[in-house]
């Protein structure tokens, strides 16, 4: 009984008759992210996410990267719990004054070479929250940023594209360029 249940589940949603139009492009993109990660680092890319003041919308789409449609893990990209094991800090939100110190601490705990990716309109320059007494600004106002991924929030596809871009640009940094 239990077995059939499990089988029917996996058969159900995962065997779509035809993938949505962007699905093929997505797979291709994801594969190039994976290839790039292995080529540059010789292993999978470890990502530490830091919410520095987000509305949590960006987190939802970062979470979505792990679902079966984008399947980050399968591609050798993984989220890690500690900054000490991270290659990339994925930072969201305007940096609130209340989070500035915590972000700096996380940044300093991440070994070099490291890349900081600022995710979302808020992370770029504070977005709609810029100018508040409680906001320090965008991520670049607190730690050096290698790449911005725009959007409010950026879609999972845009996030994957951004990760690919950071790997390409990271090449120089990693190989002493």
């Amino acid at each position, binding site marked *: 009984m239990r077995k059939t249940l499990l089988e029917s589940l996996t058969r159900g949603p995962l065997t779509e008759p035809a993938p949505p139009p962007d699905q093929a492009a997505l797979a291709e993109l994801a594969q190039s992210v994976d290839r790039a990660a292995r080529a540059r680092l010789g292993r999978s890319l470890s990502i530490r996410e830091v919410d520095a003041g987000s509305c949590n919308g960006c987190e939802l789409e970062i979470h979505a990267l792990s679902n079966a449609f984008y399947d980050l893990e399968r591609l050798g990209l993984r989220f890690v719990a500690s900054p000490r094991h991270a290659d990339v800090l994925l930072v969201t939100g305007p940096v609130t004054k*209340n989070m500035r110190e915590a972000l700096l601490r996380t940044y300093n705990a991440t070994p070099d070479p490291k890349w900081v990716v600022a995710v979302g309109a808020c992370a770029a320059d504070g977005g709609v929250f810029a100018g508040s007494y409680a906001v320090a600004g965008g991520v670049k106002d607190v730690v050096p940023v290698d790449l911005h991924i725009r959007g409010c929030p950026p879609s999972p596809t845009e996030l994957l594209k951004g990760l690919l871009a950071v790997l390409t640009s990271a090449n120089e940094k990693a190989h002493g360029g």
Partner: protein
Amino acid sequence: MTMILPRTTVTEEDWLQAVDRLAAGKCTLLGLWGDDGCVHMALLTGSDIAVLTYVCKVGTYPSVGARHPAAIRLERAIGSLFGFEAVGSPDTRPWLDLGFWDVKRPLGAQKPAREPTPYTFLPAEGEALHQIPVGPVHAGIIEPGHFRFTANGEHVVRLEQRLGYVHKGIESLMRGASLEQAAKLAARTSGDSTAAYSLAFAQAVEAAVEVKVPPRAVYLRALMAELERLANHFGDIGAICNDASFALMHAQTGILRERTLRAAQACFGHRLMMDAVVPGGVARDIAADGPSAVAALVAEVRKVFPRLIELYDSTASLQDRTVTTGIAKPEYAKSFGAGGYVGRASGRDFDARRAPGYAPYTELSFEVPVLQDGDVNARVWIRIREVDESLKLIDQILERLPAGAIAVPVEANGGTREGLALIEAFRGDVLVYVRLGEDGRIERCHLRDASWFQWPLLEVAIEGNIVADFPLCNKSFNCSYSGHDL
């Protein structure tokens, strides 16, 4: 529910009488917030909302929290943001202000912040007790907050939360904002509830300026709200099971969540439907193929979801973790006025869509599930049942979707006006108070997330549980940090 406010400015005696009624459980606290020279308190009696105003002549007001604990954090926030003192309050420590701002009382009579005052956590007394501080940055992809556990071996004796890390100063940015800017801010109060917040803000404004939204917009708003509820409930059910070491469910509900977001994208051009609800109506009409995308989603969920529920129910290892874990007692849910699945899993029969109620829900049929157990399992089951109800609502919405305009212009200028709205977000009721000035700009806007009355319950629900069960309990509450911190 929307109302044009006749707020009542009350005497100290009336204020204290309201506090009596709260303490006696005769009414429910919906909100308590500061304003220029005064504080407002929103109360729910039956399905009626009343707003009382107390003028803080000498910068003080009689504490509500002194007799009604649900008000304590709200009063601490008023103290930190406005500087008004709640006389008689049992806890006057700052809240939201963690000592990093350049100003003190940013919404009141500002003064420069010098040295941050040290914050004292509640003391842990007893021989075998030890403290475990966690956060603000956590291991997973979750919002930041600080949790301090006092434990006896593996068991939690007390949890104390310290929140405010994602405080963005939304209510200060609201001041003087145009309607358009303000709507954007409201939509970004808690991204997971963006449709609900946009709706709450829009309804408060529409109440203030007495504008009637076209029926088509009313129905489209409800469609968005139900899609948002579905997406979040799928995400939550999966995440809770994941924390109970059952990843398969997480994978399956993740697919349903993604399909829901794609349907939202197909209908309204944005996966989370951000800025899709605006004062006066909706920003854009549903795409021509939107209804069929939603119908396909509903069919898919009806096919897959029952099997997932069966799986949830028949997996003993899962039940072991969720049943009797993290119990929020019904008396707390009642006295804190905890909304959403937290309240309904603990016997509190309240849903703002039904009462006070607002269109189109007043014309649609749906049930409000209520359970008594108050454990993680009950909070999962409320979500499961609400998924079914949302599907039924979506059927009705698609069937009845009226033709016609999707928005009316909102003329905000013309005297000071104010309005209030209470909207059922996926997590619980969101209260929005708005006051527009002569120039049509925002004078004051207060947004109260459901989390304000749920976070404190999590503190008690975890007591006596093992520390290792905290992530699971926390996930089953899924309170908003951003919505709370503002």
